């Protein structure tokens, strides 16, 4: 395979699991942004999902409204692997601009469906792939004289071709099409007709025996959800009692707030008055977003914002204010490729260090790192309890791959138990308090008691400030008073560990090689461990779900001969945090990194470990 350009290039690993053509391959649909392929892509993905076969789609889109190339990768995996496979087995080439690369990227033995009008289709030299020229546009033309509509329908032709060639269940395809355009009968009929035309064409003109890849119905997705990470987080916010959202649009986080707002407009309307039990304000920038969130949190509302790296950078000053003035709030960072504007529509885990120590001076924030929709839902809801209990901004780290793609997930469970609103004193309770100080450590856990504006008791009011303050919230420039508060906050945050999601440990207990990872890297590690096992390398793994780190991380490092920290950034940000926590073992912590912006595949982890297995790691 010759090297291809930029973000599209695939990293070839030397090792893979053996390929089986049934329910284990990747479809790549190459189209032009704005050509309306989202509907057809969704229909294919949902059809396979409804046939009971696990599928993970990844939308690789440009920072552009229309005209630039876009790819939709659908990994079908009976074993349930959800990371990018790093291999294209079936390609639908609809974009002339990328066709040469798309053809080159096909794995040997692959199948190509290419629009016959694309120039590159006429001079395909590869003999190790099966090529099918399809008149996508021509077939669509028979159903739509209008050029714009014809473009959309050409995508439906490919749905039909794949249905026939890969063996989709016809009734399932038709019902998914109906669902996609539900409420618009004429549109449903038209699209179903075009899908059928695609089927008819394939039946007549494409040699079925040239395609070994097939979908066979299973029942592996029954009862499972198929949901985007951002939507899962939004549901978490809703069920976690968030009443205020202050936000500024930025890829890839916008849909988290938009989904929260549309869900709230449905489920948070007072039945009697029709009024809103929530407020959402689109801010002028991310500085204001966090200001809004902290203002609302200070006055007692559960509040959140969602942004990406550039927004986090802008929030730095307010993050320090929230930390020092001890104000709750939840900040989602749906990470994308940095630094600076970076690659706004590509994925990375580059903001961990930034979030942990956001703002000037000494900070150290609570950072939660869910992986998978179910955890995004649960931990997002939990984030509000943690923020209020510890009276501090809490960061929830996710990423573009996790947030903007659909994932298979277990059903979300209805929350058990009520909200933990933390130590909030009412006027009634204050009557019994002799000496109230907003920033006093009454209980020895570093967590002070707060009062909310509007509390009617002379002891309740206090003055919140980001300037030096004593235990009674009074302005101070006195060293001992300053130290007392700032040291207590450090104790408070360190103590929060007991309430933070614990690391998840898996794998072979006798293995000497450990892999530590977090967030969406989980999916790559899952497959990497199987590939390694297949090659005789036993591993176990620990998925970190929060910072400050639990002591379990230290125990895990101590119990391994060598530990690879797998993450999606250049510098190994979690690896460095772990080295700080385990200075004596720092030498045995290695980095398995991938930061090129594509959803992570298993290969970088496999390669990093195998390189050392062949030349044993120095421990």
């Amino acid at each position, binding site marked *: 395979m010759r090297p291809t350009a930029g973000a599209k290039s695939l990293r070839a690993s030397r090792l893979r699991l053996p390929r089986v053509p049934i329910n284990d391959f990747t479809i790549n649909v190459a189209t032009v942004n704005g050509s309306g392929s989202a509907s057809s892509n969704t229909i294919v993905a949902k059809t396979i999902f409804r046939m009971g076969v696990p599928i993970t789609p990844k939308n690789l889109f440009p920072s552009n409204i229309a005209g630039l190339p876009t790819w939709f990768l659908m990994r079908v995996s009976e074993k349930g692997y959800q990371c990018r496979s790093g291999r294209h087995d079936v390609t639908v080439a609809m974009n002339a601009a990328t066709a040469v690369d798309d053809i080159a990227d096909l794995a040997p033995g692959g199948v190509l469906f290419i629009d016959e009008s694309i120039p590159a289709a006429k001079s395909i030299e590869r003999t190790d792939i099966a090529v099918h020229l399809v008149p996508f546009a021509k077939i669509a033309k028979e159903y739509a004289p209008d050029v714009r509509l014809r473009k959309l329908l050409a995508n439906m032709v490919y749905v039909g071709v794949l249905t026939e060639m890969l063996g989709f269940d016809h009734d399932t395809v038709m019902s998914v099409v109906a669902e996609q355009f539900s409420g618009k009968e004429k549109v449903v009929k038209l699209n179903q007709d075009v899908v059928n035309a695609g089927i008819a064409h394939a039946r007549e003109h494409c040699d079925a025996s040239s395609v070994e890849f097939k979908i066979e119905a299973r029942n592996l997705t029954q009862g499972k959800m198929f949901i985007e990470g951002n939507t899962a987080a939004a549901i978490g916010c809703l069920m976690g009692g968030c*009443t205020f959202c202050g936000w500024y649009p930025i890829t890839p986080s916008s849909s988290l707030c938009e989904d929260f707002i549309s869900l709230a407009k449905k489920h948070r309307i007072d039945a009697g008055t029709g009024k809103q039990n929530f407020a959402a304000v689109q801010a002028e920038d991310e500085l204001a977003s966090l200001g809004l969130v902290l203002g609302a949190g200070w006055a007692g*509302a559960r509040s959140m914002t969602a942004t990406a790296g550039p927004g986090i950078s802008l929030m730095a000053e307010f993050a320090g204010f929230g930390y020092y003035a001890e104000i709750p709030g939840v900040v989602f960072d749906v990470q994308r490729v940095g630094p600076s504007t970076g690659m706004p529509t590509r994925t990375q885990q580059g903001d961990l260090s930034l979030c942990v120590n956001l703002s000037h001076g000494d900070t150290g924030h609570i950072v939660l790192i869910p992986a998978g929709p179910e955890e995004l839902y649960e931990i997002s809801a939990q984030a509000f309890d943690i923020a209020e209990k510890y009276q501090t901004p809490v960061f929830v780290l996710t990423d573009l791959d996790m947030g903007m793609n659909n994932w298979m997930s277990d059903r979300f469970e209805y929350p058990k138990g009520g909200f933990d609103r933390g130590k909030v004193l009412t006027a009634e309770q204050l009557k019994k308090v002799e000496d109230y100080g907003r920033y006093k450590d009454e209980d020895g856990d570093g967590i002070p008691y707060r009062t909310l504006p509007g509390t009617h008791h002379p002891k309740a*009011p206090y003055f919140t400030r980001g300037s030096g303050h004593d235990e009674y919230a009074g302005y101070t420039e006195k060293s001992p008073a300053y130290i007392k508060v700032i040291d207590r906050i450090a104790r408070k945050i360190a103590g929060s560990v007991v309430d933070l999601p614990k690391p998840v440990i898996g794998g072979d207990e006798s293995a000497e090689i450990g892999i530590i990872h977090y967030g969406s890297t989980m999916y790559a590690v899952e497959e990497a461990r199987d590939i390694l096992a297949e090659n005789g390398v036993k591993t176990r793994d620990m998925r970190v779900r929060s910072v400050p780190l639990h002591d379990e991380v230290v125990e895990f490092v101590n119990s391994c001969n060598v530990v690879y920290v797998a993450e999606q950034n250049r510098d190994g940000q979690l690896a460095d945090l772990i080295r700080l926590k385990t200075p004596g073992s720092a030498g045995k912590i290695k980095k398995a990194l991938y930061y090129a912006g594509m959803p992570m595949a298993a290969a970088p982890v496999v390669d990093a470990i195998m390189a050392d297995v062949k030349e044993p790691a120095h421990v």
Partner: protein
Amino acid sequence: MSDTTNVAGLEKKDYAGLKSTLCIGCGHDQITREIIAAAFESGVDPYNVVKTSGIGCSSKTPAYFIGNGYGINSVHGRMPSIATGANMANKNLITIGVSGDGDTASIGMGQFCHAMRRNTNMVYIVENNGVYGLTKGQFSATSDKGAKKKGGELNDYADIDLCALALELGCGFIARSFSGDMKQMTTLIRAAMNHDGFALIDCISPCVTFNNLKDSTKGFDWLRENNVQLHEVGFVPEYEAEKVEQRAGETVTVPMPHGGFITLTALDDEKHDPTDPAAARRVLERSRLDEGHVFTGLVYYDRESQALDRTLNLADEPLCGMNEDQLRMSEADFGTLVDSFC
């Protein structure tokens, strides 16, 4: 209500704050006294007051008034977002924001504009002295072009007129005043607290240390000499509505949406109608061209103003007090939602 208590049965001292640490004679301390007087006269419940500010001399003052209110001294230029968030969490609170010309017209220009655009329900007082005090005397964005620093250095840049900007952005309550005019300021603050939306009071408040020069338009001497009132502005709260009747004649009465009235008594033949945006524009233009005077009073008032909480159709009960029973959908609805993703 006796001679020394207000409609809420409180005394003026119940609205006091900590002792000021500003320079003796500072205009800002006059405004602090005016806020206390206004809250006292209107019988505001101190526990329901939220005092917000940014950074600078002006932003220190919320500690000096209404000690039983809840203060939040945020970061430089970002007070409007904090105030808006707090207002969303509990719309029943009265928000008084205090800012300065640096905090508003420079570092906080963006948030100032957008709070007006959204119409956050708050009083926003700019303690405008044309100079950075805490950092020792640099020009601010409201200093007049050609203004002189203590050392003789001249300001090269034109000033920003915050009232004109507010008018442009659709702010529904725009006033200009002078910290030394206790009566006018107190009345304006009372009316502003009764307004539904963002109420701007651009109050010229001399800096006695860095900008109280003889020929400074932000100095005490010049202001006392050249401050021209647009009208005598009055405020009649709802509970004293009968007093409006007694003010017939030269006085124009403007009803406010939540009850209460603004009264305007002409002081000369040029009657300014603050409900007319064109008239407001003319007054500001006149102020700009007439270098010898500053016109004070209620520049503009929009009777149709609707604060953000009404725009968003917020529930009657404050969001901050809502519990899981109010905020979580039923288990059945949740099941339906989950099913829609299967």
